[in-house]
């Protein structure tokens, strides 16, 4: 069950960090605020998000921190658990921007919580850089202090609809989380599907539901050509298992949570073969920036890199970059100004915020080969064979 109010500091993580890579010579520290989830239903995706932040912080500190105005600063992360709750998000944001007086706050998983944090960021003039939530509204509030590194559900939908249209997978049905991510995804697709694709059965389920049998049955009898699974890794593995068990002849389309080796471990090559999924970054793409990140991630966490981690990893570097350019580690408005204009080439691609603070990173579509490896199908200019996805 979700908790009541306020957020919890993951003291352990902070400890781990300060041990991290702080060299012998005395140095200034700058504390960056992180809002995420370490308990409750969102703890699992929260872990990937935090992995990204921790890895970034460790690398920065490993290289002796970053320099602003001739001073070297080490990064400390203040991580608060907000369980995807608006009230707790507000509490955490309020505390980070006043008590902890951090220069910038990153992260979040839930659009609703982010929507409660954004106005506080503006009140207290502390930039809020979102790295996972996809609700399009978040960057449509004319709030100059809100930035988003990851693609929102409309951007994802645009690329995906384009891809699905090219494949001619019609009718297209859905099984989606009945939360901001799932509903946002369905609505986004509904708006951007090309005319040649008809919208089929839409099955929503609550976070925590595990039985998809009635959706599977309805998808079969609706004669859907493809089914899009808008959910996280764990329900995703169940949905695929149940679709395959029922032997429904549909093309499965997944989310970035379903294009990883850890997902392969949850199922097997046979059941995944042919499935496609969008991804913020394909961990094995033949690009140095992606390779380098994937290797470092694997080395530290013993598993393949996750999209949320990549987005969050870039998010922290973007924040640092902005502080460098603004020549301050305290002045929110200056950092905000720097963010608005900076261009940063991260592991997920080029990050440049538009007038509303929304970046437009590339969206990839990868596909499972029969042997349990993945290939890149989209964007066309990035297409690469099995093992590259």
């Amino acid at each position, binding site marked *: 069950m979700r908790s009541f109010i306020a957020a919890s500091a993951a003291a352990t993580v902070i400890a781990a960090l300060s041990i991290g890579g702080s060299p012998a010579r005395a140095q200034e520290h700058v504390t960056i605020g992180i809002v995420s989830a370490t*308990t409750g239903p969102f703890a699992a995706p*929260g872990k990937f998000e935090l992995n990204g932040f921790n890895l970034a912080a460790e690398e920065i500190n490993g290289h002796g921190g970053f320099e602003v105005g001739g001073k070297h600063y080490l990064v400390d992360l203040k991580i608060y658990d907000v369980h995807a709750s608006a009230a707790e998000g507000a509490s955490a944001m309020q505390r980070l921007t006043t008590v902890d007086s951090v220069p910038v706050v990153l992260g979040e998983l839930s659009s609703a919580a982010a929507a409660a944090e954004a106005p506080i960021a503006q009140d207290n003039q502390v930039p809020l850089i979102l790295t996972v939530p996809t609700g399009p509204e978040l960057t449509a509030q004319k709030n100059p202090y809100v930035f988003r590194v990851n693609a929102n559900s409309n951007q994802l939908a645009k690329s995906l609809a384009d891809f699905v249209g090219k494949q001619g997978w019609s009718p297209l049905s859905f099984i989606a989380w009945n939360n901001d991510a799932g509903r946002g995804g369905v609505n986004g697709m509904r708006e951007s599907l090309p005319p040649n694709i008809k919208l089929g059965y839409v099955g929503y389920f609550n976070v925590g539901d*595990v039985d998809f*049998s009635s959706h599977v*049955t*309805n998808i079969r009898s609706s004669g859907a050509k493809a089914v899009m699974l808008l959910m996280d890794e764990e329900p995703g593995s*169940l949905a695929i298992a149940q679709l395959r068990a*029922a032997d429904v002849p549909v093309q499965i389309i997944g989310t970035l949570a379903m294009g990883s080796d850890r997902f392969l471990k949850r199922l097997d090559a046979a059941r995944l073969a042919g499935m496609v999924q969008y991804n913020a970054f394909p961990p094995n793409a033949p690009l140095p920036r992606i390779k380098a990140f994937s290797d470092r991630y694997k080395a530290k966490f013993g598993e393949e890199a996750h999209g949320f981690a990549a987005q969050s990893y870039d998010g922290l570097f973007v924040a640092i970059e902005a502080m460098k350019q603004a020549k301050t580690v305290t002045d929110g408005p200056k950092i905000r100004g720097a963010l608005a204009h900076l261009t940063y080439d991260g592991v997920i691609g080029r990050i440049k915020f538009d007038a509303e603070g929304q970046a437009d990173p590339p969206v990839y579509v990868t596909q499972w080969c029969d042997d349990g490896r993945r290939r890149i199908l989209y964007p066309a200019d990035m297409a690469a064979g099995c093992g590259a996805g």
Partner: protein
Amino acid sequence: MMLALAEQVFNGVMLGAIYVLVALGLMLVYGVLRVLNFAHGALVMLGGYLCQFVFSHVIASYPLAIAGSIVALLPVGWVLERGVFAPLRDDLQNQVIASLGLVLVIENLVLVVWGPAALQFRLATTQVLVPFGPLRFSLQQFLVIGAGLACVAALFAFLNFTKFGTAVRATAQHPGAALVVGIDVGRVHAVTFAIGTALAAMAGSLLGPLFLVFPQMGDGPLLKGLAAIILGGLGSVWGAVIGGFAIGIVEAVSTLVIPTDYRDAVAFIVIAGVLLLRPHGLFGRTTRYEA
């Protein structure tokens, strides 16, 4: 359409079996202790984790793993009854609060011990598929139904054909009188609660392999299990069984005609409707003035 309907009814039966399994423990505890134990779902979840732990770390035999999980939870049940629910007897409000507090304790302890990621629990019985017309169900699902019915039968036999069972029914019907005829009501309550906990462990052990083992795995079934026993009229084994299947079928069939994001709402509209027509559930007796 007819075919689709039939298929959804089957899906509903499978789903209902899960609710029944969870409802049985709830019902037993309510019937005897008059406690709506909101922590039952958390106990189901704990049972799932324990079964998975025994299976993957102690002995790779599913039946023994289930037994292990049950044996491990029995004392937990005893302690909870003696330590928490016995002192709160006849205090409906505080019993509910206490059980909600226990949910927090159990779910978050599990989170600390096992972490947030869902555990997988692969069994042969989940891989074997049994064709059923156009549908296919895994052996595990039939195992759930079988176990559910077995529990019903066992419970029924226990309550009706054993000396202790008679004491339990006597206590359920009239604690005062039971006391008079020399029944150790305290012991009956503790044992009953322990049995309820065992049923939770059983349910968790069966659901874990069917789906996943994760901290919130008990929440949904708890809600539907509660609805099932209330729909069934509280404190009747058959009420719980029929209530559970009814909810499962309504849920599954509703997806044919009603937008699926209102699926839970539909189930609860039905429950509300039934209770408004029959204020004491499908099988509860009605009297006008009891407070």
